[in-house]
């Protein structure tokens, strides 16, 4: 378990970038990404194209593994344990059981204890996070709303998860039973949070980061690292933006550095509002 959970510790303070081909993977690594997420289409394109979205072609994942020296992650559909088996056989370093892909099971997530490869799962609130941890997830990320370039949902999810953790540390032992019931989460995990004041696994931010300031906002709210999906390669000039987001994630409390790295990056991805959007975050149970 230390081995499985440990890799998330190594990714802290870093930026994990979505890439769809080896060229983008090189740009990400050159910019200082601590890992890449290999997928066929970035969420903004998945959103635009519609249809069923699945695990990437193994050939494409192999192509990205071949050109990078940093960890490579890949996505499996919610509940699609065979996609996860294939990704583990390919030797990917992390599997994201992701709501960005079309769910394969409307009741069950993958039993992540059955794998040696570690899993990251999305969550919108603490109950969801604890259910994923009870299934063996080694890292939780906010779901945010992938492919929108809009940080509002990720902020909502981080505030919900971290706010409830703060409240639970103030609860008495009788109230913890009620918290477990309300959160629909295992009582022992709730009791553990009451004692330690933190989630059992690292909490990262994903879903809507488009600027260095967005990344620093997530970090100041309490995320321990950030995923950037469409925000880099749907912007006008990906390489400098990628570098700036890496700098902003490290120096997230230093407003002088944030001001410096935010300059002259060209246009960010256009982004969309939440009213006219199908919410990927509602996928997952």
């Amino acid at each position, binding site marked *: 378990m*230390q*081995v499985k959970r*440990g*890799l998330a*510790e*190594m*990714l*802290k*303070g*870093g930026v994990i970038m979505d890439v769809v081909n080896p060229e983008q993977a090189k740009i990400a*690594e050159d910019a*200082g*990404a*601590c*890992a890449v997420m290999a997928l066929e289409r970035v969420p903004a394109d998945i959103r635009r194209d519609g249809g069923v979205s699945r695990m990437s072609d193994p050939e494409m994942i192999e192509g990205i593994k071949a050109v990078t*020296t*940093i*960890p490579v992650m890949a996505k499996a559909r919610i509940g699609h344990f065979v996609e996860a088996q294939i990704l*583990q056989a390919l*030797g*990917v*370093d*992390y599997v994201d059981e992701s709501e960005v892909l079309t769910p394969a099971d409307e009741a069950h997530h993958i039993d992540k204890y059955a794998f*040696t*490869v*570690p899993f990251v799962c999305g969550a919108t609130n603490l109950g969801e996070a604890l259910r994923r941890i009870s299934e063996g997830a080694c890292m939780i990320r906010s779901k945010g709303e992938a492919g929108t370039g809009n940080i509002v949902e990720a902020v909502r999810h981080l505030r919900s998860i971290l706010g409830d953790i703060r409240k639970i540390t103030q609860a008495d032992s009788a109230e913890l039973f009620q918290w477990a019931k309300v959160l629909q989460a295992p009582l022992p995990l709730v009791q553990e949070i009451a004692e330690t004041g933190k989630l059992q696994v690292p909490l990262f931010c994903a879903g809507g980061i488009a600027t260095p300031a967005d990344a620093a906002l997530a970090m100041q709210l309490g995320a*321990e690292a950030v995923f950037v999906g469409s925000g880099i390669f749907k912007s006008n000039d990906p390489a400098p933006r990628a570098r700036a987001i*890496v*700098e902003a*994630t*490290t*120096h997230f409390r*230093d407003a002088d*550095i944030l001001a410096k790295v935010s300059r002259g990056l060209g246009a960010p991805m256009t982004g969309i509002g939440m009213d006219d959007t199908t919410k990927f975050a509602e996928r997952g149970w």
Partner: protein
Amino acid sequence: MSASIVGVLALQGAFVAHERALRSVGASTLQVRIPADLDKVQALVMPGGESTTMSKLLVSSGLFDVLADRLHDGLPVFGTCAGMILLATEVLDGREDQRSLGAIDVSVRRNGYGRQVDSFETDIPVTGLSNPFHAVFIRAPKVERLGAGVEVLAECEGVPVLAREGSVTVASFHPELTPDARLHEQFLRHHSII
């Protein structure tokens, strides 16, 4: 020496876990991200994480050259995993533009033990510790050559995994991921910081 502050390089990686371990044995810690932070510390821990990322951030933050000077002047430093890579004289399978500080005469191969699916944990005997240490190896770097002046403190299957030369100590594994802080304590005592 109670006023000593131990810096933890906090550009990226497992720096919070190192701070926890250092504090558990009574050290005061400071996260180091810019040169002004480094000025305040009397020892430094360089954590695991992604060495290519840290290498870039060391340069862009202006830390690389001032850290190289401090290391040259004998700053006690403990580098684990990526920290070991950054302190080595030679990095194999690194990026072409990856910079290392050359503070300890070893050659290390990045991800020498393989990818995440090859990561492992095992108990190893350590010089100076009465009981074995539970070592966690994650996409770990492998020592392939040691300089004459480097002392080996622990081996795993015949390969050095904990080594010291002068003020520089390096480990292939992650002593910050287990509750056992004996190696942090050993480092601090060796340099009379606690």
